[in-house]
């Protein structure tokens, strides 16, 4: 696959991917492409039937036979449901084949539906906003540069109620969307240290109430401008957040667009919650050909975001200082 050669230049870890692609991915992609064409054709037919049924229902309504319009409307709804099912099947197909295969190349495990996940750890350290409903997907786990990582995509929603004259209405608002990751940390420690984005005067004060531990003031003014730190142990917080590590955290914050990351150090692990605006690991549009190299490029770039955490923070270093 000639396009992958340019990808290998950008991501050196992809060396040998060509062979892997030809052996492991290409045969599955060929089958997927056949399925994609067939499902897209069925989606088109369903869409056409739904549109024709709606048109028929409208015509019956204006012809004075409104009661008969229900039948074509039922047909329209069923056709639309079938079209959405085809769409969902295709999306899952791309995830299953492409994301799983690329993860396999990097020695990582992939699960599209991870179950309960690590939310309780993040909740315990108050790394996440309050929420009432959670959706987890796309769990990637394994090792990068000998550092164990376990990352999952999360969407957290808070229930709200709006009252009006006609009664109250309950709706959900997204309060967090992004990655929740657990990484091995190369230092031994016993306490808990939490690093949150600096939200400014009064908001920091409120953050302090919700965060366990004592406020830690560090000597790097750039770091202090970007983050607020709380810890159960002042010395240990400084042992973890060395001047070099603070620099790396600032660089990592930059990778995620600034003001988007929250971290917790607990039980010799680093927990990271990173807000993202986009949904990762989708495998690309279902309307593009299955073997479009942009699909692989997209997945590799998304995995690179996880590797960036290990590489930028240099979690593989065992210097312990």
């Amino acid at each position: 696959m000639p396009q992958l050669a340019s990808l290998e230049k950008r991501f050196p870890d992809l060396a040998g991917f060509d062979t892997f692609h030809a052996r492991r991915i290409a045969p599955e992609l060929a089958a997927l492409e056949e399925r994609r064409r067939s499902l897209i054709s069925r989606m088109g037919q369903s869409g056409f039937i739904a549109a024709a049924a709606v048109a028929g229902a409208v015509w019956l309504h204006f012809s004075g036979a409104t009661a008969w319009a229900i039948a074509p409307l039922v047909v329209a709804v069923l056709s639309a449901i079938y079209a959405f099912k085809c769409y969902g099947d295709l999306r899952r197909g791309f995830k299953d084949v492409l994301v799983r295969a690329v993860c396999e190349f990097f020695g990582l495990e992939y699960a599209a539906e991870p179950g309960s996940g690590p939310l309780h750890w993040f909740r315990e350290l108050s790394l996440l906003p309050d929420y009432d409903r959670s959706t987890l997907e796309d769990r990637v786990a394994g090792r990068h540069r000998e550092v164990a990582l376990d990352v999952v995509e999360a969407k957290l929603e808070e229930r709200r109620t709006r009252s009006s004259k006609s009664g109250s209405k309950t709706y959900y608002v997204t309060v967090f969307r992004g990655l929740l990751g657990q990484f091995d940390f190369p230092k031994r420690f016993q306490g808990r240290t939490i690093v949150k984005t600096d939200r400014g005067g009064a908001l920091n004060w409120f953050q302090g109430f919700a965060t366990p531990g004592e406020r830690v003031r560090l000597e790097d003014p750039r770091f202090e401008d970007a983050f607020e730190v709380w810890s159960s142990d002042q010395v240990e917080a400084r042992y973890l957040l060395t001047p070099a590590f603070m620099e790396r955290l600032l660089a990592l914050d930059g990778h995620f667009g600034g003001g988007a990351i929250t971290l917790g150090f607990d039980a010799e692990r680093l927990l990271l919650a990173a807000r993202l605006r986009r949904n990762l690991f989708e495998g690309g549009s279902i309307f593009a050909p299955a073997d479009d190299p942009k699909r692989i490029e997209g997945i590799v770039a998304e995995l690179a975001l996880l590797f960036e955490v290990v590489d930028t923070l240099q979690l593989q270093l065992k210097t312990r200082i």
Partner: protein
Amino acid sequence: MDALTILLVVVALLLAGGYFWYVSLIRRRNGAREALSSIDVQLRKRHDLLPNVLKLAGRFMAHEKALLEEIVRLRSEAMQGYRPEVPEEVKAHLEAEAALQAAAGRLMVAVEQYPELRSVETMTEAQQTFTEVEGHIAAARRFYNAAVTDLNNAVEIFPGSLIANIAGVRRMPFFEIEEAARAPVNVDDYLN
């Protein structure tokens, strides 16, 4: 409101302000002392580690006898007691520790010249532990220096200087690394 009432209100405000300033000074001084004790906890780890390292090093590093003796002397100096409420004694204690840190650092560099010693598993573990302990000491030093900066600013800035003088709160010394420990290592000294 007559002049006397105004005067009484002003005096009351001054007394209240002075009291709160005093409370803040004492809090800062106690904070600095707490940070000092957390340094001592970490320094004790270094003191406990060094005898084992010296014992092992003594068997292989015959040419470094002077350095090993210096470390023994500096360690016993650093372990001498001091009164945390006397800044001069704190300063002497921290200087002794800084000198010990520099000498211990030189020893760890010198170990690199002795492949036989380096290959001893106990020595490798001791080196790793030493690095870890030094990381903890550096963290405790940063905590202490931050607390001392807080205290010294409060003691030196008027009217804190006045209240500190009355309350007997004094500046505390920073824990600074000795120049020798900061200087880059001359590799030639060890690779000849």
